[in-house]
């Protein structure tokens, strides 16, 4: 009894509307290499990346707050496995709380030798200070910036 198989691929394209808040955020990154957050009036937290409303309170956020470029590592991992459609390993990424922000934003960590996982992990330990670096050519995307240890 021969068990047969069929190969199928899912191929759908989407145009996701970013909305005013995210659009403004990315425009600032693209044009001025600056990162901004928005404050939730009820909790006082500056949310980065910014959102039009806080999901904790459902209240609309209020003022724009410039954050960074320095910050602190809140979480990270170093990937050693290849996953389809994701970058070739090894690479490090995680979350950074930029100065002025109360939440952490995701991004890649570059400039650290990832050959020895334990050594690299010590260099990127939670609490490590980092600074934001911006690409020369920016598109208005989270990949326009990354973090390096200071």
């Amino acid at each position, binding site marked *: 009894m021969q068990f047969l198989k*069929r190969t*199928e691929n899912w191929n*759908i*394209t989407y145009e996701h509307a970013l909305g*005013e*808040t995210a659009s403004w955020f990315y425009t600032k990154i693209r044009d001025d290499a600056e990162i901004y957050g928005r404050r939730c009036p009820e909790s006082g937290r500056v949310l980065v990346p910014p*959102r*039009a409303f806080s999901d*904790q309170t*459902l209240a609309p956020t209020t003022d724009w707050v410039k954050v960074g470029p320095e910050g602190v590592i809140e979480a990270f991992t170093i990937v050693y496995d290849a996953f389809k459609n994701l970058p070739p390993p090894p690479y490090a990424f995680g979350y950074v709380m930029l100065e002025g922000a109360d939440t952490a934003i995701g991004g890649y960590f570059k400039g650290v030798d990832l050959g020895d996982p334990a050594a690299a992990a010590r260099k990127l330990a939670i609490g490590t200070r980092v600074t934001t670096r911006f690409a020369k050519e920016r598109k208005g995307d989270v990949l326009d910036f990354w973090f390096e240890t200071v």
Partner: protein
Amino acid sequence: MRTALQVGMIGCAFHAPRNHDTASLEEAVHQATHNALRDAGLAIDDIDGIVVAANDQYDGRAISIMAASGSVGGVGRDILCTPSCAEHAFVLAALRVGAGQFRTQLVVSWSSLETTDLSEAQRLGTDPYFHRQLPIDDLSSHGMQANALEARVPGAREAAIAVTESSRKHAAIAYPEFAASPVDPRVIASSRVVRWPLTEGMVSKPAFAVVAVVLASDAFIAERGIGQPAWIHGMGWATEPGFLGDRDLAELPSLRSAAQQAYDAAGITQAESAFDVAEVADASPYQQLLALEALGLCEATAWQASIGRGDFQSGGRLPVNPSGGALSFNPVFCTGLMRIAEAGNQVRGQAGRHQVADVTKALAHGASGFAMQYNTVVVFGRDRKEVQQ
């Protein structure tokens, strides 16, 4: 079936911005939530739990409840998701209140237009074993069902055209901003064929909308002094099998079952004369015809006569889809919840320009999936149901 505590619809919002590109999906869902809570006179803290429904493939998010949950007040709350269809979210929410575990529930569903290829997304709903190579999307399935119905019922096509015309006329009053067209039956009949026998004029382009509804228990409603809820007198839901070839597309036994469940619970024996208004599924006019029959509102043999007489038009003996239905505005994934909400609003006296006078009982029907696979029926009443103990 024992009757448990009673559940009422106390708030509703439709968010259908003209231009859906200016806000993210999550922001749109948040807006609808905000509007529904305001309509109910409640704050998010009054909500005990939430049920949402969306289609991952339409949204382009592998678990659509994830980012959306923040928008609907899901953080710190009990939130579930029924991606089978929007109507199921309503059903589950009503069951959760009826179980006595929650005093209120928020129900939110949306139909996004961020994929450039809705048809392709729908085609992924066919099985890869036998049917994926075929061009089966929602519209194709509606076309097949229409053909089956035409073969079974002489005059079905004429009835379908007439129903389309009525719906567009209703929409011109209810939601003139949709500019639902064509209205002229000759144009409806002769416009370009999209999926034989369906013409472009017989269906409505997919639209973007978010629909939100608030439900509450009788105790909560009494405590807060909330006036004129739409009480759920009966609810029924059932499904056809998945393979179109396993079905007689000209019949809807699952809708008959769902209707029976709802009518039994509501104590309705003569559906034809029990309701003041009905909102039924009509992604194509043939759906509406099938619904009229399976809901016991009008036998197929009487379609032409009843429709010709204007029985189901505004002002007729039983207005059907005074909102204009999906034939006029079609947020594909959540049209079913929209029908339920429109019927509930009629009972609440909140149906705006298309309010039917003196509504004491309304019938709602939503259908989803290929060729009306899922059918859900809700009976709303203005007064609390007589409790059988």
